[in-house]
């Protein structure tokens, strides 16, 4: 899709592939993210199905479960399998078989303003929840007089962040039993995660709306206005924020989302893509060769250079060069995926019970017991399809 594999990578890859496979031309079609699900569905059903497709990791289970992807379990042993990123491996597997291979991933971290931390007397980046809250109070003490200041910009429906807190408590949003998933939002761990979200939100004095997520309004734009000390975001959001505030890049760095246990980093949700071969593609062997070439260290390292976590290589050295990417790489060792259920893609793109639960709880519309119970049953209903 637009913005995934960097162009130098694909150019070099296709050149090498075509050199080793005479008479083959690689037709590379970049799609947009908007409407990609419909595009994929119809492309697969069309007359000339593509041979290799990129699917978001939250979509992969759906296509795998529908049995429209080639089983790559055997072939994948030649794709650097021992270096695969765990979360992407999970999203590409279904019913014990591997239907999609990892491509690349990214996860969230906490972007922060070094200059504001310095002025507020926060000496070191927080490495535990308590230190995080302490940093927030110091920031508010120093800058709180400005009505536009926000120590941490945290909108109500940033459910990816909530996931981190739930994982950190040792819980999950669903448990897997073969191909069946049951929601576990009403567990004690999930509730604890939700409570911390509320604590964090209240402590930060954020002015972000409680009923929308981090893209409406776009949090990078708000960070770019210069009055926000921290935001939980993906690395590239800094570039977006700095577009009209170029000085911001030098002033910003990042740290992984702190765990409740001092010194550890909280597990993070990893968003990313898998690669798969449609079952009706006419060039299955060529497709597998392509994947083999792509999953080699040579090309995977280019992902790290471009600020993404490689899917089939553990070599993240290039990421360490930039402080923001380094934070992402550090957190990525603890990366998790959403439940690999076929309906997850639709849940995320549409009516997400986690978002509704967050808003209801944060605004006080529902108590924690009711909010989690309602979200649990909504999630179970959604899992059922």
């Amino acid at each position, binding site marked *: 899709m637009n913005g995934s594999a960097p162009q130098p990578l694909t150019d070099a890859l296709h050149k090498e592939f075509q050199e080793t496979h005479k008479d083959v031309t690689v037709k590379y079609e970049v799609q947009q993210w908007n409407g990609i699900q419909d595009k994929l569905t119809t492309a697969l059903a069309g007359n000339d199905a593509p041979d290799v497709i990129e699917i978001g990791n939250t979509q992969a289970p*759906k296509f795998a479960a529908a049995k429209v992807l080639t089983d790559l379990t055997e072939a994948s042993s030649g794709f650097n399998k021992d270096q695969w990123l765990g979360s992407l491996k999970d999203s590409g597997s279904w019913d014990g078989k591997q239907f999609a291979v990892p491509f690349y991933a990214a996860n969230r971290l906490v972007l922060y303003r070094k200059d504001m931390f310095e002025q507020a007397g926060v000496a070191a980046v927080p490495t535990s929840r308590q230190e995080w809250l302490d940093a927030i109070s110091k920031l508010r003490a120093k800058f709180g007089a400005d009505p536009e200041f926000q120590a941490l910009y945290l909108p109500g429906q940033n459910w990816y962040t909530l996931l981190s807190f739930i994982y950190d408590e040792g819980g999950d949003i669903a448990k897997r039993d073969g191909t069946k998933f049951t929601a576990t939002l009403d567990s004690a761990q999930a509730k604890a995660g939700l409570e911390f979200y509320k604590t964090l939100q209240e402590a930060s004095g954020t002015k972000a*709306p409680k*009923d929308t997520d981090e893209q409406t309004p776009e949090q990078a734009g708000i960070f770019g206005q210069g009055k926000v000390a921290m935001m939980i975001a993906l690395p590239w959001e800094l570039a977006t924020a700095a577009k009209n505030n170029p000085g911001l890049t030098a002033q910003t760095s990042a740290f992984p989302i702190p765990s409740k246990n001092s010194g550890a980093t909280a597990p993070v949700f990893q968003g990313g893509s898998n690669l798969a071969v449609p079952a009706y593609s006419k060039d299955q062997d060529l497709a597998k060769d392509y994947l083999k070439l792509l999953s080699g260290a040579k090309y995977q390292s280019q992902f790290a250079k471009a600020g993404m976590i490689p899917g089939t290589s553990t070599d993240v050295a290039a990421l360490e060069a930039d402080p923001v990417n380094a934070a992402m790489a550090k957190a990525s060792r603890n990366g998790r995926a959403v439940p690999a259920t076929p309906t997850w893609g639709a849940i995320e793109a549409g*009516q997400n019970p986690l978002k*509704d639960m967050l808003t209801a709880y944060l605004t006080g519309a529902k108590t924690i017991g009711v909010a989690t119970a309602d979200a649990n049953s909504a999630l179970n209903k959604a899992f059922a*399809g």
Partner: protein
Amino acid sequence: MTATVDTVSPAAAPPRAARPHRRPAGRVAPYLMLAPAVVILIALLGWPALQVLGISFRRLDLGELVRGEVAWIGLENYRAVLSDPEFWVIGLRTLVFTAACVVATVLIGLGIAVLMRHLDGFVRVALQLALVLAWATPIIATTTVFQWMFDQRYGILNKTLVALGFDGFAGHSWFGSGASTMTVIGLLILWQAVPFVAFTLYAGLLSASKELYEAASIDGAGPWQSFRTVSWPAVRPLLTMVAFLSVLWDFKVFTQVWAIKQGGPDGDSTTLPVLLYLKGISGSHFGVAAAIAVLMLLILVAVTWRYLRLLTRSPETEL
């Protein structure tokens, strides 16, 4: 000179009974002239519609679609849809929403059309331009602008209300409840639907010849009476048609409802078209979606039944 008061109406008009119009060499001509339109309609609307009916009796998920499988499951899709209590809530919500939108659109459209008649050239063109811009702007832009205008923290509406002294609106969330969200959606739809209604009714009003208005005012009719005796008959049949079309469009509207809040919060702004999308394109359960589409069609026919009968039986369809 004939008064052309009954012009642009598909519904009842004074029957021109005495003169059946004969077209001499015309046994075949009507069919030939109708042919292109009918071919297009049947091939591109009729045939797919029949297929949707067929699909509603099949299980057609992603796998079956790609593999080209045909799995007949009878009325199972319908049973699943109709036994879900959510469906009835959503259906009722859709009907209420449609009714509200249609009434508002037609009334406001009529008001604007009448107003347009009485404006000076420059003001009228300004108004028409504003209307056309509202209508022609891409939906992605209009929905986003509306979301921004109503934003809890940064929206111009809340800021203005606070500036006017209504401090309670600082940080007020317009998307916190289903009813409030649907009102915002309704305003958006109204904004984009009124222009078409206004223009059509305006065209209808124009067709009432100037002499009639002059005659009415010479007879001493005030504005209200002249409206009642001249404008209203000119516009009434058009009104019915426009209301009919509005019912169809507002019932089926999807993009704006989805874009504003994806049917939330908590599914409280979900309408039938949204449900269709969730089951179909989003969830890839095309069989279930087809069943919902058929049900939607049945509801629409039921709601517009009287009008359909009126049209097909009335003297209008006679010559």
